[in-house]
């Protein structure tokens, strides 16, 4: 019943938007009919190219829009993730952006904004205030480049630091699921003594440790406010409090919390290592849910539970939080004007609007849009994680706030610590890189 109602409301909204689009494109003396029959050409680029449920859901939404808008000649390009960044950077250098394109939250959208390639999608928020109000706190943090203007609406919650654990292994070795740092270190020791890897980590792509572990670990030590200050240059990453946070990471490394060679195996391999019962825990993002759904047997998934990272005694940050943030959304090119702009906004709303969010959430993929998923057909582990994310406070992911160069620096720095590097040096390099980019 409720579903049907939202559908009706959305339809009415869509129709009103369409008529609005027509009338606004009709300021000249042309007849009304002439305006609505005019073909509008539109291009959209995204990286939902694969065979996973989420990619299919997004492509489905675009197809629906195509069907519902025969007057729009839509050229939709699905570009493989591996090449998406490079492709977009190249066309951006040539100032040839498509009308609508998927951008990652963080340095990529920031760079595009700085280069004057984007225009706000605020008209949508004005038209659908209820929709905008339904997003979780912080959803627009990285898309609000100017006060009161939003440049994209996230279609994903990138929750990056769930603590997944294998309940059977914890029971078998009589280990308590850690809620504090001390308990975590005790668990690490017990598992090591029993020849089980405490935490599976696949840090070959070096963003993994940063995104999954450091974000929530450092937040617990430094608190969120300090981090946001440091990003702006009002605090320094060389402050003792951050060096301490890196020290916590080093403590994990020194106590052999991760398996040997974690820097040379990828995230997928680490997930497999964990799911095969070789490791007791894994700190990873919501994407692990998607991957496991595709490549693990139900028996392998059965003992897996999900919670938040343990609290750190004496830290300035809150416990029970997970790091996360807007996972990216669709943005509008500055060059798109007139009828094409109206159609483009309409297209963005078709994907990022309430129905779109629901469709994406039901593809076992997290969104930053409030809704009730209990009755939906999603996997139980996903539902568990979704509820954990709903209850937990969300703290910033480092690379969503740092400049691209500083992000690279801390990614490499964590690998360095895993190879015996000193937290002080890593902190210094991070500070230098961030300072260089804020000076500009």
């Amino acid at each position, binding site marked *: 019943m409720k579903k049907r109602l939202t559908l009706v409301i959305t339809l009415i909204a869509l129709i009103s938007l369409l008529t609005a689009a027509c009338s606004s494109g009709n300021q000249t003396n042309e007849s009304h009919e002439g305006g609505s029959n005019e073909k509008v050409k539109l291009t959209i680029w995204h990286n939902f190219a694969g065979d996973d449920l989420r990619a299919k859901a997004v492509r489905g939404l675009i197809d629906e829009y195509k069907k519902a808008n025969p007057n729009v000649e839509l050229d939709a390009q699905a570009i493989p993730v591996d090449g998406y960044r490079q492709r977009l*950077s190249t066309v951006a250098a040539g100032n040839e952006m498509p009308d609508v394109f998927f951008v990652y939250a963080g*340095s990529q959208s920031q760079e595009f904004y700085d280069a004057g390639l984007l225009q706000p999608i605020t008209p949508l928020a004005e038209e659908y205030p209820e929709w905008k109000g339904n997003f979780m706190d912080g959803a627009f943090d990285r898309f609000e480049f100017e006060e009161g203007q939003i440049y994209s609406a996230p279609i994903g919650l990138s929750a990056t630091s769930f603590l997944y654990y294998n309940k059977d292994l914890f029971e078998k070795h009589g280990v308590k699921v850690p809620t504090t740092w001390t308990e975590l270190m005790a668990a690490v020791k017990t598992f090591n003594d029993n020849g089980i890897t405490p935490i599976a980590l696949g840090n*070959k792509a070096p963003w993994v440790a940063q995104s999954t572990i450091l974000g929530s670990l450092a937040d617990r030590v430094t608190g969120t406010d300090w981090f946001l200050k440091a990003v702006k240059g009002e605090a320094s990453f060389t402050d003792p409090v951050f060096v301490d946070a890196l020290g916590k990471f080093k403590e994990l490394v020194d106590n052999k919390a991760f398996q*040997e060679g*974690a820097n*040379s195996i990828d995230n997928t391999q680490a997930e497999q290592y964990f799911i095969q019962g070789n490791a007791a825990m894994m700190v990873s993002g919501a994407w692990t849910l998607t991957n496991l759904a595709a490549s693990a047997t139900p028996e392998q998934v059965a003992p897996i539970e999900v919670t938040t990272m343990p609290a750190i005694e004496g830290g300035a940050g809150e416990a029970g939080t997970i790091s996360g943030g807007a996972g990216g959304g669709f943005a509008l090119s500055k060059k798109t004007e007139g009828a094409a702009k109206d159609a483009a906004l309409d297209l963005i709303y078709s994907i990022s609007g309430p129905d779109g969010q629901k469709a994406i959430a039901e593809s076992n993929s997290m969104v930053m849009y409030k809704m009730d998923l209990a009755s939906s057909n999603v996997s139980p582990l996903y539902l568990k994680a979704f509820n954990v994310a709903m209850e937990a406070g969300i703290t910033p992911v480092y690379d969503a706030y740092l400049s691209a160069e500083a*992000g*690279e620096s801390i990614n490499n720095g964590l*690998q360095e610590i895993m*190879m015996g590097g000193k937290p002080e040096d890593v902190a210094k390099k991070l500070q230098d890189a961030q300072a260089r980019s804020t000076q500009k």
Partner: protein
Amino acid sequence: MPTYLRSRSFVALALLPAMLIFIVFAIVPIIWSAYYGFFDWSGLGSLKFIGLDNYEMMLQDPIFWRALKNNLILVASAIIGQVPIALLLALLLLKNSMFNRVIRSAVFMPMVLSTVVVGLIWGYIYQPQIGLLNTVLEMLGLDSWIRAWLSDPKVNMYAVSIPINWANIGPYLVIFIAALQNISSEVNDAAKIDGAVGFRKLFYVTLPNIWDTVIVTIILCISGSLKAFDHVIVMTGGGPAQSTELLATYMYNNSFTVYRYGYGSAVSTMIILISALLIGLNYIITKRRG
């Protein structure tokens, strides 16, 4: 003189199409890219001319020097690995027997496969827990040799260079076989009459006859090793902590990941300069020997 004129117009016509395509689609873009190297440019928005600052920054960046060192390891391993092994195999497999044909095809196969497959399989060979190499070492009782081959910075660059060499032997083998066949039978017969066999024949007859090809392969080794990119991206991504960074991966990261396009362009110009320098050196050395 009509023949002179005719040959001149022939040369012009024979060179023109190749030159045209080459200059427009390879030389102009690289000059263009070198030009970007003088700017502070994120790749988006406005450019700021900074003269040689990018080069200065590059020379002060320890990662640049590490990448260069890693590239030189690849160059060395290619010249002392790929070329002699390929030449040896070419000499052994020259005769067109069934056995040789099968082996020749086999040696070429890594080249046919995409680098992703090569990277994946070697990833499994080097895998720290279930990897083939560590398993074998354990069986042989060489437990002290066991290590995380791709993440231990003391060995990982060497570990990475083995698959690269292994995968690249194929093309050199084919090049050498084509060249060896071109040694006319008279030369071989003359050598036989002179009693030149074995190493003597190799050094006094075979090598001088294919010397131009050897030089080309060494040039290919140098330029190929300095441009090396794909295998490393798949196997280590240049990590951990940039320990297997190469000039090309360093350039790529700067250009497309951290929005320092101008700097990345300067690095790519540097790659060309270094290659040219090494090839010049090679030219001087081989000229004397040849």
